[in-house]
């Protein structure tokens, strides 16, 4: 309760302080009517600025980690810093799509060129790294590249929004910021996993395939893909995955196509196992069954599988393990890893229901095989 003197000083609503308050309130309302949006924009800009600082910090951490790992593992003879900066600014120009005929081949070719150049560039700055380490370094530099790109894009729109005072650029950026920050944090987690060579959530497909091909005779098919044959419920199962344990996704589209062509008329079904982004509210490690080629990326690998399967009229089934986008690129969570055995059980059920004894079935483990051997 206020003391008597304070109350006296304040007076009633018609008193001097009361009048000041009324004037202040009126001014506040008038200011808010005319400058409300400007004030709101300033608040949003402050929020974006804070996010941008954090993004800068995250990309700095990823870059430092890349440099440290390159120096530790790669034993470079030259200073890798300037070369790394060049790699972090690299870009990719998509093929023209005005005439879409043949665009998949063009994309595939450009992606191969990009991958080979990236690989060569990383090897140049890390000559001391062995093959799996070199692949891990490629993944690490790619994570740093992603963070650098995110930062540059956000900074661009932030400065553009500020320069043009465009409320709509700023409001879009502010609304997307939490998702962008989540992704950036996940990329930093991914960079740490790549530096150490730890399996990531996306590796659940290769993990399933490697469990099937363990202790079996293995051979290398198409680019960086390992294949082994095993028996499952009296069916001949051809399991395939990218060659591990280095960070690698291989070219499963090419591999499946060549296996289908090698075994023309013999394959009764293709089962693809991959990690897939869950909806909010769903549990990580849950398994879902579907139809079609479960493989991410730009679509070139999926195209090859769909094309060959359609040509030979082979059904393609998909088993996906649900996880968040963050879990997919950070070290594999226990609940995701535990899903591998359940997936194998689901594969058994699927082939029992959809094929006959003696049939040939392809099981493809799709994803990044970092930290997963075979």
């Amino acid at each position, binding site marked *: 309760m206020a003391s008597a003197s304070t109350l006296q000083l304040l007076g009633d609503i018609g008193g001097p302080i009361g009048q000041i308050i009324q004037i202040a309130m009126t001014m506040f309302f008038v200011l808010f009517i005319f400058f409300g949006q400007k004030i709101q924009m300033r608040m949003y800009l402050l929020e974006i600025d804070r996010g941008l600082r954090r993004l800068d910090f995250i990309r700095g951490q990823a870059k430092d980690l890349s440099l440290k790992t390159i120096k530790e593992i790669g034993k470079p003879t030259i200073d890798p810093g300037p070369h790394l900066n060049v790699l972090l600014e690299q870009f990719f120009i998509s093929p023209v799509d005005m005439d879409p005929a043949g665009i998949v081949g063009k994309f595939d070719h450009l992606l191969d060129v990009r991958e080979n150049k990236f690989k060569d560039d990383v090897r140049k700055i890390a000559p001391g790294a062995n093959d799996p380490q070199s692949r891990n370094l490629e993944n690490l530099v790619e994570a740093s590249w992603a963070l650098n790109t995110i930062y540059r894009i956000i900074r661009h729109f932030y400065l553009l929004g500020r320069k043009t005072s465009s409320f709509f650029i700023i409001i879009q950026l502010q609304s997307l910021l939490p998702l962008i920050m989540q992704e950036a944090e996940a990329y930093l987690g991914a960079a740490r996993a790549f530096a150490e*060579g*730890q*399996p990531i959530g996306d590796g659940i497909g290769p993990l399933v395939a*490697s469990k099937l091909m363990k202790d079996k005779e293995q051979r290398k098919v198409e680019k960086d893909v390992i294949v082994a044959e095993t028996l499952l419920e009296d069916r001949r199962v051809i399991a395939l995955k990218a060659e591990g344990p280095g960070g690698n996704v291989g070219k499963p589209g090419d591999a499946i196509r060549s296996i289908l062509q090698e075994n023309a008329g013999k394959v009764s079904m293709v089962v693809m196992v991959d990690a897939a982004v869950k909806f909010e509210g769903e549990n990580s490690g849950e398994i879902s069954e579907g139809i079609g080629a479960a493989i991410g990326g730009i679509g070139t690998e999926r195209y090859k599988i769909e094309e060959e399967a359609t040509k030979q009229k082979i059904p393609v089934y998909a088993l996906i393990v649900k996880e968040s986008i*963050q879990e997919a690129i950070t070290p594999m*969570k226990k609940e995701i890893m535990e899903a591998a055995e359940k997936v194998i059980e689901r594969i058994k059920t699927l082939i029992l229901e959809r094929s006959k004894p003696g049939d040939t079935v392809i099981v493809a483990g799709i994803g990044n095989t970092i*930290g997963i051997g075979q």
Partner: protein
Amino acid sequence: MPMLISLVLVIIGVTTLQQGVDKFGSGNTQEALLYLSVTVFAFGFVMFSITRARRGYAIPFMTPSKVMSVVRCAQCSFKQIKNFAAGEYVFKIAGTCTQCGKPSLFINEIYAEDIKKR
């Protein structure tokens, strides 16, 4: 700027609250309600600003996790859970089993566990 507005509104809120309570005590309900409505508005705006600012800060950062390796023996029931070490990978041969003496140890699992859960 938002901080300054909030500060002014807090002062206004406290002052009008005092006035409102005083007027209520002296039986002047109409004026009391006028003061108290300004109080509600002022504090409401401040609360709104605070929750907005907090939401801005509340970008969900990732929970720290620890990566573990599970070493198993292919010949006996030996199992060991240890911290992940660089260079390890799933199905890597990990040496001789201390339980059965056979060179059949391998890394069976590598997984991340949230530190909070442990």
